[in-house]
């Protein structure tokens, strides 16, 4: 026997046609929501569907708690090494506009590392330092190479390493995590990923525009390309910021394993 307030239409008509939410013949998007009447505004005790009809989030995700924590620890390690390098470079670049942009971006990446630092205990790692690790030795080699240039005439090499190689890797690793993780169980990570990604996109654009403004001769274009190629080889060997599987890549993951 139907409970009071139960949907008279039943679960066989979950997908509502346009306009179906008006009037008595309302239809529902999920079985769960079909068991409740939408509450009338004036009747605050009447049960409402726990999920709005437009809420399409699902429970399953690609990552366990441990998977997510491991990736977050890799992100924190990489963001730390990046903000340290950007801060260190400020004094070594003669171009005033670059100097000031690096100063701003230093904080962005420090803040990302802080977001990840705070997320780790929520992912059952009570000692965040334990998971603040590079994905593997090859990634350390790559980061060392990114951070290596020092001389004042190497601004192109510094910027290409960060804005044409490393930050695009952050964007892709973060996007993969964002798209693959459970939108319900791992929502706090998703929120931090979105904040970080917004900065990454804007920082990438700032950096790319600086690079374009510096590449004013064929030789400088070749320098930038050489630097990018050298670093791409290194990051490829590491598998990316979270190691093999940074972007899923199951075939690669298996071959490395």
């Amino acid at each position: 026997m139907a409970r009071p307030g139960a949907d008279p239409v039943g679960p066989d008509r979950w997908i509502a046609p346009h306009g179906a939410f008006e009037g008595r013949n309302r239809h529902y998007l999920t079985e769960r929501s079909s068991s409740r009447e939408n509450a009338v505004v004036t009747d605050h005790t009447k049960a409402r569907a726990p999920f709005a009809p437009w809420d399409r989030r699902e429970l399953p995700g690609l990552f366990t708690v441990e998977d997510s924590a491991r990736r977050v620890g890799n992100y924190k390690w990489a963001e730390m090494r990046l903000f340290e390098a950007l801060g260190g470079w400020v004094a070594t670049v003669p171009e005033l506009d670059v100097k000031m942009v690096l100063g701003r971006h230093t904080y962005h990446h420090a803040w990302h590392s802080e977001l990840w630092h705070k997320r780790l205990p929520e992912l059952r790692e009570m000692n965040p330092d334990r998971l603040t690790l590079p994905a593997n030795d090859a990634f350390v080699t790559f980061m060392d190479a990114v951070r290596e240039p020092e001389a004042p005439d190497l601004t192109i090499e510094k910027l290409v390493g960060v804005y044409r190689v490393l930050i695009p890797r952050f964007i892709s690793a973060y996007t993969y995590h964002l798209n693959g993780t459970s939108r319900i169980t791992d929502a706090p990570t998703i929120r931090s990923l979105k904040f970080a990604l917004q900065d990454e996109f804007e920082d990438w654009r700032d950096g790319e525009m600086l690079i374009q403004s510096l590449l004013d001769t064929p030789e400088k274009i070749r320098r930038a390309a050489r630097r990018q190629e050298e670093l791409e080889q290194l990051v490829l060997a590491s598998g990316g910021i979270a190691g093999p599987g940074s972007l899923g890549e199951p075939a690669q993951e298996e071959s490395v394993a």
Partner: protein
Amino acid sequence: MKKMLPETELARDERFVRSKIEDRIFDPRGARIAARNTGPAKMATDRPAAAERSRSLMHGIFVGEVQALEGAGRTCFDFDDTEAPFQLKLDMARQCWDESRHCEISIKLGDHMGTEIGEYTESTFLYSAACNPDPVLRLCGVNRALEGLAIDVFSTMKEFGDESGDPVLEFCEDWMLADEVTHVKMGSDWLRRLTEKDPERRERALEFQRTVDSIFNLGGFRGDDEENVVQLARRFRELAGFTEQENDSLSALARESTEQARQMAEMATAMLDAQSS
């Protein structure tokens, strides 16, 4: 990239002209200029060459901000995770952003006031305080001494903007002042936390701060009196966590420096007079 970048390696474009502090002090023209009686040195609209002096000070603020940015950036890089805690580095990264904004503000204010990058020389002794190999001493020298000085300078410039009817200058200096109060608090906080169980290290850090303060009081640049170009901003200093005792001690140090500078100027003038007669 190596750790600990010396001030001689600071990268600059072709507009910047570097000068040494000793060249300024021992400039033979300085004694005759100092001997002129032009009234109180305090920045005020009724003082001779007030506009020129404010532009010069603005340029000084700009190069100071560049060096403060570089110093904070180096503190992010120079120390590993055991030498400087993660949270300290996060504070320094935040300071990088703040100093970067201050550079932008100072460049635009320079344009607004009619000066340009490179019109005046740059001394890099501010950055040299940021080269101390001990992060506690570095923070004491930079965040307590120099950022404390910045509070005084911005407060003086804010008042000057108000007096001279320049709302843009007053507005911008007030915003920068707010950041500097935060930076001093960071310095005080880290001094307390990192030396909690090491009073000897704390004393060394405070001694380093006093040395940096003395350098920047040189010639009576900053103090409580009309004789000082920049006035001690006691109210904002208290907001930043400096005690009344610390402010009094700084004021006494400033009077001492002013008196020393006056005596040096008198001696130099006497020597010049003796040479010319």
